[in-house]
């Protein structure tokens, strides 16, 4: 039921058997529309339709492709990157997109101050620090050599650059609008941040512009960007409706009032398909692992004990019975699509007898493990943590390990306990890749010797691993780098085993049968401009 008020924006797009609105059920409300300060998937899903970055992601893959930059070239030393920009692009407010704008954006991000630094979480995470602490920063400077050429200087070699420029947070936004909206004016007030006016009036170059955010009705409406440089979006409007409850999203889809939603429960996939919807299964780009803390439980410092645990876990059965179709047992800490994946590695086989032998060898027949899982959470790599945990508890008990079951709410102390407090011997956690680089996985887990969840610092190999990872990341040559990571992966499996990689689960996206043109992305970075909805 569409109202007559809707045809204000030229509803003549497409033929008459296509709807002019694609309605998507979102699980939560977006935070801010300035992607620099955004942190969560619900927000990025929206900003991705509005904003574009220098680099983009090839639909259906985790690989980068040109977007606002048509090509890029590193200098000899790999510290200067020259980007040739797409020409004739304007922001949706009419401002031109050029090298000046690129540098304005980069500098704006680099020059965050005060609360803005805390709020710009992704920058901190990927670029290290800001202009007030140049030492720690990956970014150095930006020069606009001519209108369509921008040079970005960085401070060290890393496999992540320029890939990270494809992240939504580092999208290009209109300098004029940023200025006008006082975009950097983030303030810590009380115990939260307040965001400037700009954050609700984003101006980007993407296929859509923000039309309205009806907070009262919990809907966000995007409409086609008239000045978009590419093909006009196939559907004029996108409406995001916030529906926090999973089964309600399903009912809404069934009732036809939304056209799709993200992360349908794996158990619903079949039913959804049966009801004529399309479940788009993305490639798995994540890892679920069981973390181990050898510092808290010294028995875990013995490789045999860790191996025993690996043999004890019936990961095959878990994947088959508890994880969505397409999930795989993990042999290493990175998914297959990531360069550096070692195809020769096999997962530790399920072998309870061997596990018991190993425990006996290590003299740990009476091993007790405090094994934790989070509640109040569902992650793509871990749709139902408890079920996974429960299966493992049985496996562990089967080989004579006493398990002390612990759970905490995800936001209610679990994460703190895992990383800051080191409160568990073993725990479940995982990671969804941001972009295609082994460092995004392995570096996150083990690079920081003194502060990582696995407490590798107490292990003799901890330091080596950390150094090897940093070295591998700095290798400029792709082939060499891949080989280095493959080697590290093999060591991680055979010699280190700091934790037990469990599985890679494919997250899905569901749309009604009327929807076409949606390409699922392993990074969950779908753009909706190609989507059509038939009547």
């Amino acid at each position, binding site marked *: *039921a*569409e*109202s007559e*008020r*809707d045809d204000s924006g030229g509803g003549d797009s497409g033929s008459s058997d296509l709807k002019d609105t694609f309605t998507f059920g979102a699980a939560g*409300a977006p*935070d*801010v529309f300035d992607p620099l300060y955004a*942190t*969560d998937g619900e927000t990025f899903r929206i900003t991705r339709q509005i904003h574009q970055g220098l680099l983009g992601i090839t639909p259906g893959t985790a690989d980068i492709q040109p977007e606002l930059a048509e090509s890029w070239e590193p200098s000899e030393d790999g510290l200067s990157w020259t980007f040739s920009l797409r020409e004739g692009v304007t922001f949706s407010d009419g401002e031109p997109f050029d090298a000046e704008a690129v540098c304005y954006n980069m500098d704006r991000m680099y020059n965050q101050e005060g609360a803005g*630094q*805390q709020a710009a*979480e992704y920058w*901190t*995470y990927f670029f290290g620090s800001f202009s007030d602490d140049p030492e720690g920063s990956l970014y150095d400077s930006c020069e606009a050599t001519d209108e369509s050429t921008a040079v970005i200087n960085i401070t060290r070699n890393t496999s992540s650059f320029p890939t990270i420029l494809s992240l939504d947070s580092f999208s290009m936004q209109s300098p004029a609008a940023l200025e006008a909206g006082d975009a950097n004016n983030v303030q*810590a*007030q*009380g*115990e*939260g*941040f*307040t965001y400037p006016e700009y954050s609700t009036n984003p101006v980007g170059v993407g296929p859509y512009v923000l039309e*309205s955010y*009806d*907070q*009262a*009705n*919990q*809907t966000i*409406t995007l409409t086609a960007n008239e000045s978009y440089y590419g093909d006009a979006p196939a559907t004029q409007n996108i*409406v995001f*409706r*916030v*529906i*926090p*409850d999973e*089964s*309600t999203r399903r*009912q809404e889809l*069934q*009732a*036809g*009032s939304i056209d799709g939603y993200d992360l349908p429960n794996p158990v619903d996939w079949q039913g959804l398909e049966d009801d004529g919807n399309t479940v788009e299964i993305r490639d798995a780009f994540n890892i679920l692992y069981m973390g181990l803390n050898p510092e808290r439980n010294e028995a875990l410092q013995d490789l045999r004990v860790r191996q025993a645990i690996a043999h004890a876990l019936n990961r095959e059965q878990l994947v088959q019975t508890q994880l969505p179709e397409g999930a795989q047992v993990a042999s290493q800490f990175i998914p297959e699509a990531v360069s550096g994946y070692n195809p020769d590695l096999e997962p530790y086989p399920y072998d309870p007898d061997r596990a018991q032998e190993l425990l006996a060898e290590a003299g740990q027949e009476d091993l007790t493990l405090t094994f934790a899982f989070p509640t*109040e959470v569902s992650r793509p790599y871990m749709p139902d943590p408890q079920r996974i945990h429960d299966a493992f508890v049985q496996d562990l008990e089967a080989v004579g390990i006493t398990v002390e079951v612990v759970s*905490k709410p*995800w*936001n*209610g*102390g*679990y*994460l*703190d*306990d895992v*990383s*800051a407090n080191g409160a568990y011997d073993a725990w479940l*956690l*995982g*990671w969804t890749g941001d972009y295609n680089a082994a460092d995004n996985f392995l570096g996150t887990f083990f690079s*920081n010797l003194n*502060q990582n969840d696995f407490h590798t610092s107490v292990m003799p190999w901890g330091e080596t691993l950390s150094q090897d990872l940093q070295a591998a990341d700095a290798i400029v040559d792709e082939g060499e780098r891949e080989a280095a990571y493959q080697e590290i992966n093999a060591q991680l499996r055979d010699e280190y085993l700091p934790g037990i990689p469990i599985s890679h689960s494919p997250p899905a996206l569901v749309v009604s049968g009327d929807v076409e043109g949606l390409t699922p992305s392993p990074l969950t970075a779908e753009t909706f401009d190609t989507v059509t909805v038939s009547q």
Partner: protein
Amino acid sequence: MARFIIRRLLQMVGVVAVLSVLLFAWLRSLPGGTVSAILGERATPETRAALTEAFGLDQPIYVQYLKFVQRAATGDFGVSTGVLPGTDALQIFVDRLPATIELSVAALGLAVLLAVPLGYLSARRSGSPLDSGLVILSLVGVAVPVFFLAFLLKYQFAVEWNWLPVSGRQDSLGCTRITNFFVLDGLMTREFDCSASALKHLVLPSLALATIPFAVIFRITRASVLEVLGEDYVRTAESKGLTARVVRARHVMRNALLPVVTTIGLQTGALLAGAVLTEKVFAWGGIGDALARAFEVRDYAVLQVLILAAAGIYVFINLLVDISYAIIDPRVRTR
């Protein structure tokens, strides 16, 4: 009367003040919290420390509380960190309130409109099959978990029959917002389709939310009417030969309503609680929904404001109940 109201208002302030202290201390003693909710897996010790400091969460609790009180005095109740980051928590409350009020009024209205007449009928026919049926129905009404009922309602009316929308408050019709009471807004702007859509969306959630208050009010009404029917003054009224209508309205109902009014007040409080579940399953962007979300993401500022406000509303409604009680009951009024 005025003295009574002032007294109650002061008590109300007291209750809310005490609650604010307890709430504040309690929230901050929770494990985990805002920071880890914001950072998720990506948390590193540095980012964690930086955010904790930025939010002032590293200071002693009493310092935090004093600062909170200081800011609250200027009308600043903090900023949301998770529900709608950057938005004034008070603003969130103000924005969400109409949705909850709309839903509660509809649910309570439904409950009262059904429960009071049926309760009267049941009492009048006490012992009859109709009475037993209604009583059992009301008992079942209390026994069905709200979220389960909500699912059933949605499934049958929205998915199977497609008569009513599954969730939300309104179709996206681009309606003009004035008060955020959607039905009202539609009427004010003469966008009647907006009102109609809002009304349609109201049906299922208010039904789900109304079951418990219905059951409770029904039973109170029934019991109270039964009691009043046995009172001497009803017999007096009958002995005067008054018409059945006058006896019912003036002598039975006016007295029987006294406990009913109190119950309605108490039920309004219960409604706020029920709203958490109902709003969640119906994606109703109200206070309950915001509360559930604020808990998930440990949004202290929003939690504080919403819980205090809920308590305030509850106490305030009970004040209204007492006042209306005084209006109906001269024994209270003219004391």
